């Protein structure tokens, strides 16, 4: 739990938050994923190995996954990024809900998900990163009014790189097999 809390405290520190939010790449591809990671680390530590009161409501991990998916979609909207930069209340909502509604449910639900659901999530993540990357790269207008045009293009490029990296990583694991799985097969 400590690493998650430390990461969260670092991310919400005003100088760090301002620095990350100074660019679209920092805001969308660094701050928001790290906030989710912090929430996930804390949730894993809190729920680790013990049955939860909510476990019955999250059988198979699908309800938790749905919560995370909807929360991610909301915080990926250009309008929400602008609103977080312009209003302290929306910024506070982001710093609270991304760990609680994205990271925590995803971390708790992921081990419960059947392999086909995990594959579905990966495939969607990669395809959406690629499509969003393309949209941000070629959009003739600024989608976020708070950021300059070149930052939008940089985000597009970064999202395309992320999509390719995820595709190679996930595809590599799917074809070659995870290192752990390979070892256990050999044994």
């Amino acid at each position, binding site marked *: 739990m400590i690493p998650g809390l430390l990461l969260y405290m670092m991310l919400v520190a005003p100088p760090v938050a301002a620095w990350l939010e100074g660019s679209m790449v920092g805001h969308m591809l660094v701050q928001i994923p790290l906030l989710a990671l912090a929430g996930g680390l804390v949730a894993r530590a809190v729920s680790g190995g013990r049955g939860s009161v909510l476990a019955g409501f999250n*059988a198979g991990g699908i309800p938790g996954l*749905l919560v995370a998916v909807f929360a991610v979609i909301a915080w990926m909207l250009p309008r929400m990024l602008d609103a977080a930069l312009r209003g302290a209340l929306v910024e506070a909502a982001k710093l609270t809900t991304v760990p609680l509604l994205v990271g925590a449910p995803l971390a708790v639900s992921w081990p419960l998900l059947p392999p086909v659901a995990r594959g579905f999530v990966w495939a969607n993540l990669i395809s959406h990163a690629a499509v969003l990357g393309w949209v941000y790269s070629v959009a003739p207008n600024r989608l976020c009014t708070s950021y300059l*045009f070149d930052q939008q293009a940089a985000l597009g490029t970064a999202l395309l790189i992320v999509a390719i990296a995820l595709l190679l990583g996930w595809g590599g694991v799917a074809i070659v097999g995870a290192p752990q799985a390979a070892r256990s097969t050999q044994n």
Partner: protein
Amino acid sequence: MRLRAIFAAIAAVAAGSAVLAAVTDGFRVATTEGAWRLAVAERPRPLPDATLLDQSDRAFRLSALRGRPVLVEFFYTSCPAICGLLVSQFQAVLDALVERPRGREVLLLSVSFDPDRDTVTELADYAARLGDDGRIWRIARVNNPGELRGLLDAFGVVVLPDGVGGFVHNAAIYLIDAEGRLAGVYDPDAAERAIAEATE
């Protein structure tokens, strides 16, 4: 056990859809600019009564234009990019208005958001280059730079320094209705729609 999870999944979808509907104004907009345009179209907004100074050094208040629809654009004369498109659209609008029965009622107003560099002399030169005599199309700056921020906010114009002495800004054509309210925001290439709504 499974039944609870099914209900939880349905609740997650319902709550998530409700949140997304709320933050996209009913799944209609995803950007701040889109939301602003929709809000203005549905509910016209009052505007601050800023004092402007046009290319002929005539001072006038925004409220003095009431009674006639006004199409407005924001620009700065040294803009190397989008302002050129806006200005050429305004020239086309001027030509189109002449051919419409109610077109002569419409005024055009270009407002510079760079009052430091866009002096009246600069605006006069700019108007002369465009062949604008200032009768229908007035090219202006705020008389008091302190009123600029309020004016830009009221129109939803976001101006950011580009780091090399210029500005990045959202480009649009704005419609002020005859009652002096902001009643429409249109893409620069949707000038026909702006004209139609101004003359309807």
